[in-house]
């Protein structure tokens, strides 16, 4: 285990957590923190500290940190007011705590006095050998130990994405997307003021963390831009880094006498640096999540050659436009592939890319088509559209007054089973051939209405079902760009 991974272990894999400032008032941070930690089944021991020793959420609390048996907790989750925290850190260090997440505000975000208090906090943490996260942060999650140490509740399913955010509510958004789609996280942390640990430090750690396949970050400002770029390059040399940056619109033209200076907007420079560092830069929070989730659940493509498989025309046409705009290579179908498809589909199919089945599919057509297209050596990635329409038909039949008579029960059941099969076939072809296969359908939104079997099966395969073709195309384009970056630098 690298020393960096070891250094972060008490923060993300603590054996026990001390929570300070635990209150019996359900509106307080200290109460919420204990509640969220208990609810999500944290695997380690919990040591709530309450100065009256009151019972909170049926838990005994400790009046004094010094009473906690030493060596049982290695993380402190600090919700006490800023003035108390230097003493708190010292007391925690004495019982063997090695990392602290400071929720409390009143530091550098609160003016000069707060900034001085923050410096003192960093100094003391350093002196005690405590890894200091925050202050003024929302908290952290680590699914390997079922730890939801957060003052707001979103807790994601387990997964391979790890994220750091300079804004707690963007962290919440990522966690919420994880809950909604099922593509989950290994770790998530709100950097708060980033007094000791900044974005660059977390990115450096995620790059080495064996439980992380994809790093995802939300950035507003950097203390040391060049150091961040160095860490980002080190990360993208091993695994993708998806970045959302806030505050990119210019505060006005720079005073500059040179032409270069007058063209050097913050956003243009940042865009160029992202390309140089192999960072996958997203424009919106949902794009950031979807791109990270795609990296986490699809193999990297070897090139940009895409085939679209669609159940019907319009979806394919719009998707083709999106591919061309995104710089993907919508290939002409290789002759042998066309011949193969001719043998499977009736003559009315499109005979080109997009492969529009035009309703010609029968029971086993789609799994066979997916396998032969994905497996073709001239194809790097496949987008599959129209998944779920049979299951949607089944839903209509099941709520019909004629149901279950007239054979409706049998055909509805068949439709649902077929659509589930298609989703499974897409995932299987992707895994078998090591190429991305992205399924897109707006029927992903039926979850609450009736739960269409196709997007449900995509989710069960551990992948993201995209709500539209263009969102699948955009995610795929990010994969292609990153793959090309890796190939150009270290042969992939």
């Amino acid at each position: 285990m690298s020393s960096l991974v070891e250094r972060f272990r008490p923060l993300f894999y603590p054996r026990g957590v001390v929570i300070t400032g635990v209150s019996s008032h359900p509106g307080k941070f200290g109460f919420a923190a204990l509640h969220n930690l208990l609810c999500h089944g944290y695997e380690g021991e919990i040591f709530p500290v309450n100065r009256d020793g009151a019972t909170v959420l049926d838990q005994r609390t400790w009046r004094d940190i010094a009473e906690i048996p030493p060596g049982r907790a290695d993380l402190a989750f600090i919700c006490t007011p800023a003035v108390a925290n230097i003493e708190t850190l010292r007391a925690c260090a004495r019982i063997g705590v090695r990392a602290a997440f400071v929720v409390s505000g009143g530091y550098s975000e609160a003016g000069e006095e707060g900034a001085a208090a923050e410096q003192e906090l960093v100094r003391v943490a350093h002196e005690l050998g405590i890894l200091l996260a925050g202050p003024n942060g929302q908290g952290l999650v680590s699914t390997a130990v079922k730890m939801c140490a957060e003052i707001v509740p979103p807790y994601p399913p387990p997964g391979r994405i790890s994220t750091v955010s300079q804004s707690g509510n963007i962290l919440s958004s990522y966690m919420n997307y994880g809950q909604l789609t099922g593509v989950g996280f290994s770790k998530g942390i709100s950097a708060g003021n980033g007094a000791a640990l900044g974005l660059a430090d977390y990115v450096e750690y995620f790059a080495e963390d064996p439980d992380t396949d994809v790093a995802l970050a939300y950035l507003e400002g950097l203390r040391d831009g060049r150091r961040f770029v160095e860490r980002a390059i080190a990360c993208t040399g091993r695994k993708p880094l998806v970045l959302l940056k806030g505050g990119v619109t210019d505060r006005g033209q720079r005073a500059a006498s040179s032409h270069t200076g007058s063209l050097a907007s913050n956003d243009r420079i940042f865009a160029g640096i992202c390309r140089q560092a192999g960072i996958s830069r997203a424009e919106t929070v949902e794009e950031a999540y979807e791109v990270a989730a795609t990296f986490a659940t699809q193999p990297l493509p070897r090139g940009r050659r895409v085939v679209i498989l669609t159940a019907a025309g319009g979806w394919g046409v719009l998707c083709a436009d999106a591919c061309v705009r995104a710089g993907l290579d919508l290939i002409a179908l290789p002759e042998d592939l066309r011949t193969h498809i001719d043998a499977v589909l009736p003559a009315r199919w499109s005979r080109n890319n997009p492969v529009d089945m035009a309703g010609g599919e029968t029971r086993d057509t789609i799994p066979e088509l997916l396998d032969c297209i994905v497996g073709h050596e001239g194809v790097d990635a496949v987008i599959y559209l129209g998944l779920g329409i049979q299951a949607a038909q089944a839903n209509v039949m099941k709520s019909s007054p004629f149901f279950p008579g007239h054979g409706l029960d049998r055909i509805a059941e068949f439709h649902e089973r077929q659509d589930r099969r298609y989703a499974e076939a897409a995932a299987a072809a992707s895994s078998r051939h090591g190429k991305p296969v992205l399924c897109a359908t707006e029927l992903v939104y039926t979850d609450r209405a009736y739960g269409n079997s196709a997007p449900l099966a995509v989710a069960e395969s551990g992948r993201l079902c995209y709500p539209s073709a263009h969102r699948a195309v955009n995610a795929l384009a990010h994969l292609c760009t990153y793959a090309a970056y890796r190939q150009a630098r270290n042969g992939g």
Partner: protein
Amino acid sequence: MPPTLSEYDSKQLLREYGVATVREDLAADPEAAVARATQIGFPAVLKLCGATIAHKTERDLVRLGLADAAAVRTAAVDLLARKRPEDGDAQLLVQAMVRGRRELIVGLVRDTQFGPCVMLGMGGILAEAMRDVVFRMAPLTLQDAREMLGDIKAAHLLDEFRGEPAVDREALARILVAVGRIGIEREAVVSLDINPLIVSGTTPIAVDALVEIAES
């Protein structure tokens, strides 16, 4: 605004870093200008050149397409007459006339966040209006520089275009790498513009350049 190197000294710095520049030489008086122009070849370009002269076009200090010795002599006399006391030891700069339809801009800027950054843009003197520019943080690898070329929106102008051959992309990439090295190695360089960088045949050539330096 920080002080600048003269156009000639700005390109001397570029030449030290292996950037191809227009053939040029300084001349103190009209006769010397004629002699230099004869060596370099006609048509020639004549400019008034000095460390404090940053905006020659605005002051009408550039004479293009001078066909012969007589034209150079006349232009030299005229330019020297426009010299102002604050121009200091300004001299005549005699240059070859570089032809090429494609003009680029290459520059260096020091960003408060990311330090020295290199820019490539289309359009030369139109660059600020076109805003088709890309940046990278110095130092640049050759691969970083190659990718900059591809990130320009009008990147197809670097290919074969209306009878002009494709730009020597490797030569252009090496210029970008060199400008990045200047940013890393020459701390006194505050900013650098190569504008225009004209593509002559296949070769990008620095025709005009301006280096801003830190006040010592």
